[in-house]
């Protein structure tokens, strides 16, 4: 059974459902989708006792107003978009009960860019290849199954209705700092960079460009020199930092293409990608080199907190 739970009064620029992502199909050219800020997404689910992988609403930049159709327990994590219930501010990083007919609204970003709204039991949406992750470019997933973002009058469904919890959960808010440090595992192609460019890569402050979306985020700064402008296309993973001929890095994210041929500096860790997803255009980031084994263990530990 599926229950109508929220109705869209005002859609805002971009809100879409994301589960953990679509896997096992990259060899066909299909991308992964899933939450840009994996950590906030996972915490939102955890706050309402959802299992890993439940579909959550990812709201980018705000501007969204939802009307509640049935009492439901929710949690909001990620960016501070000035969320209100019937115009009263509500705290983030904790679960709360939303009552029928109340209006949940998101303003514009005060801190961060993306908010995650989880409902207890998870949103219900058609699954394609075991996932309802929204990918607009591929017209797959989401509340309608065609990759579209939320529009006015759309209705979101919950898998199950629950009684409101008597106690609510809280978690430690994640801080979004002035300059975001991003852990980067140097890759095998670092030898293609000149020595001074490698120094530059890790010792300058990069600015997040306006050209940033779910496929990738461009950074601007002193351009890096690469000895080869392009390589033979190969599979590219989440967080791959590629350097096109203009010398400015592009960090490839959830909706990235499956193969690509620009030289790569290395890969951001998934948790660094999650932090980058909350950095607004014009704000600063730095790359911090880290070892693959340590980063791998840290990520395995992160997953074990949730899975």
């Amino acid at each position, binding site marked *: 059974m599926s229950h109508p739970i929220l109705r869209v009064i005002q859609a805002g620029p971009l809100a879409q459902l994301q589960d953990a992502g679509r896997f096992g199909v990259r060899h066909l050219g299909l991308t992964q989708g899933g939450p840009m800020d994996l950590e906030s997404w996972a915490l939102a689910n955890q706050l309402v006792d959802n299992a890993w992988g439940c579909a959550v609403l990812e709201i980018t930049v705000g501007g969204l107003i939802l009307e509640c159709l049935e009492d439901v327990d929710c949690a909001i994590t990620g960016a501070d978009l000035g969320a209100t219930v019937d115009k009263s501010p509500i705290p983030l990083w904790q679960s709360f009960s939303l009552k029928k007919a109340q209006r949940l609204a998101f303003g514009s970003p005060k801190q961060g860019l993306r908010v995650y709204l989880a409902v207890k039991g998870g949103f219900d949406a058609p699954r394609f290849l075991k996932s309802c992750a929204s990918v607009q470019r591929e017209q797959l997933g989401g509340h309608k199954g065609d990759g579209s973002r939320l529009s006015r009058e759309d209705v979101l469904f919950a898998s199950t209705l629950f009684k409101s919890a008597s106690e609510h959960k809280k978690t430690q808010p994640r801080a979004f700092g002035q300059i975001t440090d991003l852990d980067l595992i140097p890759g095998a192609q670092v030898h293609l960079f000149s020595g001074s460019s490698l120094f530059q890569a890790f010792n300058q402050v990069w600015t997040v460009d306006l050209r940033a979306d779910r496929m990738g985020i461009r950074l601007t700064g002193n351009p890096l020199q690469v000895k080869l402008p392009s390589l033979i296309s190969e599979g590219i993973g989440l967080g791959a930092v590629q350097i096109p001929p203009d010398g400015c890095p592009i960090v490839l994210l959830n909706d990235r293409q*499956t193969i690509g041929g620009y030289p790569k500096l*290395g890969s951001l860790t*998934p948790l660094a990608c999650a932090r980058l997803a909350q950095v607004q255009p014009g704000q600063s980031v730095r790359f911090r080199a880290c070892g693959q084994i340590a980063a*791998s263990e840290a990520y395995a530990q992160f997953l074990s907190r949730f899975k």
Partner: protein
Amino acid sequence: MIKKARLVPRIEHAGVDAWTVRLFDDIAEENMPWILSLVKRCEVLFSERLVDIVPSYTTVWIQYDLTKISSQASRQVLVSLLQELNPLDMSREGCLKEIPVWYHPSVGPELARLQDEKGLSLDEVIALHTEKAFRVFALGFAPGFAFMGSLPDALVLPRLSTPRQQVAVGSVAIAERQTAAYPQATPGGWNVIGRTPLRLFDPQRDAMSYLQVGDLVQFVSITQQEFKRLGGDDR
């Protein structure tokens, strides 16, 4: 076995839960039996610990499930696998698939330029594009988009300097030594020389993508009438 001596695989970091196995440095059809063999062995040995695997011209990218296997253990699997890797028998691998194409200026906007630059008649272009089957080296760019090669010298044309905003679904195109057919309407920078009525990517179909890495693809010239009879849209 001479070819085997040329194989110097490298296992490269590709993030917290992925490796890129680099088998070759150059694009060659002879790479494919090794690449496909590596994919098959990984599927067997990693089994449910495999998240995704993406073969390409010279590499195989492998993502594993960190909750089921550690980074070091996954590397060890690859090291042992590579020590006993044998090429697949390609006479039994990869299907031969046909792609019917209506080669015509009304659906092939770059045919005229190709003919001009290479001094070819339309019939000669068709003959060159259909004279032998091409191998699928990689899938990517968009769902079901297959990179095939290698084209004869006479058809080698650089990409458009400015990509088109919209390339029609089914467009058959060439760029450098490669050819492809667009499974959906997307922006694109390849030289379009014709159109196929085939549905190249269908999420409702079992294999979804008509073409798979390793397949041999034979282009076949058809008339406008056949194109329309097969469901093609000539607008």
